């Protein structure tokens, strides 16, 4: 066989390998979570108690923890990522100051999550603890709120850098038209740039959420790892909790019987589906947006 054919087939083989890897991930997760799906059924997802010793498994505390941390982190991060996107995309698109901010945002994304967790544990936790004493909740320091703060910082770069490039792509005739009608810069941003980039900025938020949902290490170090839920919202929000990713990280190697292990893998399966769907929707919006 000629080298040329070998090479062409090799290229095809590698692309096929990719498809096989992804299909393999899905199949492995489904097969391994079968014992738990069979014995626990759908009720698993909203069972409120997680007690491996009694063989009771309910994923509700982790689903709630994941949603709560990601959502809080998102709410905190949006003003900052939008501000960065507007600043870098509209106010200051070149020059050293703009480069400085752009590199800062990239470095925020580059810092390993275990370092965020370590730093948070020793610097942020005492600060949050004294804050919690002031507002009169149990001063754990670690918990959903602390994790959300660190997560917020970690996810800002994803929405910010996408937003920047989208805002830069707004056609200047549109902006010039608005200026010609006497609009101020604020009015141009509010009535031309933001409406024009709305779906793209939404896609950036989706990518940020995808990051936040799957983030493991920083959350596992800061959330306090309890499997019980507080009674009031305040207790849940400021108290320790667990997310899907962090409970897998902390209990996977301890899981000593089939259903326990399988219940954890089912969490992984849910996490896989949710993040993949969110990511794909985000990517789809971006491609549609950049092609038009």
């Amino acid at each position, binding site marked *: 066989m000629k080298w040329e054919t070998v*090479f062409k087939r090799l290229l095809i083989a590698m*692309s096929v390998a990719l498809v096989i890897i992804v299909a393999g*991930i899905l199949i492995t997760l489904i097969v391994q979570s079968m014992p738990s799906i069979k014995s626990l059924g759908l009720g698993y997802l909203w069972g409120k108690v997680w007690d491996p010793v009694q063989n009771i498994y309910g994923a509700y505390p982790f689903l709630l923890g994941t949603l709560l941390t990601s959502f809080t982190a998102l709410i905190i991060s949006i003003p900052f990522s939008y501000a960065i996107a507007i600043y870098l995309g509209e106010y200051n698109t070149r020059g050293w100051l703009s480069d400085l901010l752009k590199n800062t*945002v990239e470095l925020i994304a580059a810092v*390993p999550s*275990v370092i965020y967790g370590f*730093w948070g*544990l020793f610097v942020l936790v005492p600060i949050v603890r004294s804050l919690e004493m002031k507002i009169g909740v149990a001063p754990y320091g670690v918990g959903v709120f602390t994790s959300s703060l660190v997560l917020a910082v970690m996810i800002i770069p994803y929405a910010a850098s996408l937003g920047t490039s989208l805002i830069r792509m707004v056609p200047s005739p549109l902006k010039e038209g608005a200026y010609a009608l006497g609009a*101020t810069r604020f009015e141009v941003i509010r009535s031309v740039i933001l409406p024009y980039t709305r779906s793209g900025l939404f896609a950036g938020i989706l990518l940020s959420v995808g990051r936040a949902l799957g983030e493991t290490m920083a959350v596992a170090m800061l959330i306090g790892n309890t499997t019980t839920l507080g009674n009031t919202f305040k207790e849940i929000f400021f108290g320790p909790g667990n997310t899907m*990713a962090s409970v897998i990280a902390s209990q996977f190697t301890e899981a000593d019987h089939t259903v326990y292990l399988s219940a954890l893998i089912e969490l992984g399966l849910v996490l896989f589906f949710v993040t993949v769907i969110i990511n794909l929707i985000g990517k789809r919006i971006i491609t549609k947006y950049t092609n038009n």
Partner: protein
Amino acid sequence: MEARIRIRNTKSVVFKWIIILLAFMITIPLIVILVYIIKQGVMQVNWHFLTNVPAPVGEPGGGISNALVGSIIIVAMSSMIAIPIGMLAGIYLSENPGTRLAHYSGLCVDILQGVPSIVVGIVVYFWVVKPLGTFSAISGSIALAMMMMPIVIRSTEQTVKLLPDTLKEAALSLGVPYHRVILKVIIPCGFSGILSGIMLSVARIVGETAPLLFTAFGNPYLSTSITKPMQSLPLLIFNYATSPYDDWHNLAWGASFMLLMLVLILNISTKLVTRKWNIQL
């Protein structure tokens, strides 16, 4: 009328300053974290720290040589797996756009990029650790390689797409066989773009902890056997940071400093390489 215009102008200026204020607040956490890690970590780093394994609890001193060696071995093996596969798949994607296979593998790259790192750890546990019967460095490398591939593929694909078609056509018209056109013309021309993707992916995986928890697992001793558990920098930081001992915290600060410097150097040098290529990852 005058007053109305003044209000609108003031609003615009106020808005601008709010945006500037919010935008530059992102520098605060970065500076705070960098300064804190450097302050805590730089004191720990010396020759003894770099060449010794961690001391048992209660004994001062000790170092992180096992984690340094482990990280280098694990990342090197991941690169050996991910770079060839990633480059070949990336070339396929850019050379054959529009085919059904390209569509599906492109989709798979997007999916793989979005898979949470902990899920990669679970999957590799069942693919490699279970059959081998032991945690091992090679399983950690496979997990990290899966996280590395999407970045290498996308950067290769985008770099090759940026190259003018005439380059390839000129080589083909001279009678050069297809594989030589790719290996001797296309890859060398796009080398810096592909290299930047590789460096970025290494920077990304060198700090990954979650996929290693159930694969490389960690090892308090210096080990170079790829079928045995192996320590790595992020694993050491995680294990020692969450331990109750001050000596171990100090080791973890030192290790954090080393890891952070490594990641920063990789990122900054990538930036120098990519100036030429406008690659969006």
